[in-house]
Structure formats: structure tokens, C-alpha cells
């Protein structure tokens, strides 16, 4: 018998601290599989965010740097420019990338830095206990929108892929999710392509992953996956928003 599925080598043996059913673990594994398959572990440097994934530096077996809140793309820019032979990726949540770090996100994309960003969109602030995020849906009940998000006072959700696709420089923007086996396979392809683009020097690549937060959504893990289909995908359509071939 041959092994058809096992933990990728680019993940350490550390036990993930994420809640039961949190899809961060799936995305961590997909990133590690991409690193393994491209054979780039020895020269990859990851930038960890602030948020639930703050301890990602314990989980990836490559070199990791912890950035201050939202500044991961700025740190990645510095690392990549000083060591262009290295593969540099950031792993950020929606509070980090779409809220406090929106300036760094947009500026880095506008400059077309040759880095890879993995963006986890779970429509809520996870680590701090379920407050409203810039990506929370209209009507979504959170700790800080107890009557549901009202656009009159709390504005509308930010669609990051659409926002960045208005810029000239980004090479690759795709939105995927991980709520079913088929969607996980698609997400794997997208994440691998985002790393491959950097290896080939194509420029800024970002993959947005619609992710589940069963704990703060107040749902069972399975129900949370269904909620992505029912509520998140209609607001955040899956697909490729930019793919520069040259």
C-alpha cells in the first residue's frame, strides 16, 4: 500500500490551537502542500499576522516573521526586496488585511510587489471574540452589531478581490473557499498558482479564502460550512478576478 494522503512536511508537529472545525487548519495545510510540491521550503519566508493566525510561525516549518497588526505586506515587501531569491508569503485574516492593514494591502498591490498573500475572510473578528469586521455581511449579528450590521451606521462589506482588481499592478487575484472537498481542491490549485507566480516573477498574487468561524458564528462546524454557501458566496462570488499571463 502507498500513502495517498498525509500531513505535508512544511507543517511542523505543533498542535494547531484553532477551535474545532475552524478552517484555518485546512488552509495552513494547503499552503504547506504548495510549498512541498514546489520544493521551496528551504527558501520560503512567511509573515504571520495578528489575529487568530498569529501563531502561524509555530506551524509552518519555514522561516517566519511576526508583523505588527496589518503590516505584513509592508514587512514582506522589505524581505522580498532585500532577498529577491526568497519566496515570501503573508497569511492574514480579514481584521488584519481588510481593516487595520488596508493601507498596506492596497499600496503593496498597487506597487505590484512580487509576493504571495493568503487572505482568510471569515466575516468576523475571531481572536478577540466575534466583533464586526469590514467583511461582515449586511444583517450579520456580531458582538458589536447585536441588531445585525446596518449599512446606515456600519457601512457595507469590503470585497477585497474586486477592490484590488481596480488596480493595474496585481498579477493574480482569486477568491476560493474550503467548505467542501471540491472547493478545497480548487483552493489548493489557486494557492499553488499564487506561489508559482512568485517563483516565475509574475508579481503580486492574492488568494482570498472564504473561511468558517463556527465558534463566533455560533454554529456547529458543519452548519458553518453550509452558511458559507448560503450567505457568504452570494456576497463574495468565487472566481478569478485577475490573471495576467505574462
Amino acid at each position, binding site marked *: 500500500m502507498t500513502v495517498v*494522503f498525509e500531513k505535508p512536511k512544511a507543517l511542523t508537529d505543533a498542535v494547531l490551537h484553532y477551535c474545532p*472545525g475552524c478552517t484555518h487548519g485546512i488552509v495552513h495545510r494547503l499552503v504547506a502542500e504548495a510549498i512541498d510540491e514546489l520544493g521551496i521550503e528551504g527558501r520560503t519566508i512567511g509573515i504571520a499576522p495578528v489575529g487568530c493566525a498569529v501563531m502561524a510561525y509555530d506551524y509552518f516549518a519555514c522561516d517566519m516573521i511576526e508583523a505588527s497588526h496589518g503590516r505584513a505586506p509592508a514587512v514582506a515587501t522589505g524581505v522580498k526586496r532585500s532577498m529577491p531569491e526568497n519566496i515570501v508569503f503573508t497569511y492574514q485574516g480579514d481584521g488584519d488585511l481588510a481593516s487595520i492593514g488596508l493601507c498596506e494591502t492596497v499600496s503593496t498591490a498597487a506597487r505590484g510587489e512580487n509576493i504571495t498573500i493568503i487572505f482568510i475572510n471569515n466575516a468576523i473578528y475571531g481572536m478577540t471574540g466575534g466583533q464586526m469586521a469590514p467583511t461582515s455581511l449586511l444583517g450579520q449579528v456580531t458582538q458589536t452589531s447585536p441588531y445585525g450590521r446596518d449599512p446606515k451606521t456600519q457601512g457595507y462589506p469590503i470585497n477585497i478581490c474586486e477592490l484590488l482588481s481596480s488596480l493595474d499592478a496585481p498579477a493574480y487575484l482569486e477568491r476560493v473557499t474550503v467548505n467542501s472537498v471540491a472547493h478545497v481542491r480548487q483552493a489548493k490549485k489557486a494557492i499553488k498558482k499564487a506561489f508559482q507566480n512568485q517563483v516565475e516573477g509574475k508579481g503580486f498574487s492574492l488568494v482570498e479564502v472564504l473561511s468558517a468561524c*463556527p465558534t463566533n458564528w455560533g454554529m456547529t*462546524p458543519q452548519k458553518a460550512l453550509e452558511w458559507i454557501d448560503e450567505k457568504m458566496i452570494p456576497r463574495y462570488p468565487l472566481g478569478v478576478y485577475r490573471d495576467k499571463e505574462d
Partner: protein
Amino acid sequence: MAKLTFKEELCKGCGLCVNACPKKILTLSKTKLNAKGHAPVECEKPEECIGCASCAIMCPDCVITVER
């Protein structure tokens, strides 16, 4: 013939693998808990496993190794 191996101590009992299994042969244990207090996943009918790895693909914690 396929073989599943579970790292029980890593399992958080979320059940995503149970729902992903096309043969519906996985279940969360009703008789034991791991050191963290979660009911770990078990395979009720190992002989029916087709080795598709759907369970392992949906597992957030790399609990499952699949051989075929």
C-alpha cells in the same frame, strides 16, 4: 482495500470528516475521549473504505493518514 490511520490526540471532534465521507463509515467515538476531552473520530467499517481521502482533505488538523 484502503487503510485509515488516525492521530487521535490531534482530533478535536469537529465531525467535518464524518460529513465528507461518501461511504458514511466514520463516526465520533461514543466510548472514549482523548486527552483534550474531545470524542475522536473512528471508522466503523474499515473494510468499506475506498481510500478517496475526502475525510483527510476536510480535516483541519491533519488527523488522518490514508493508504491505498
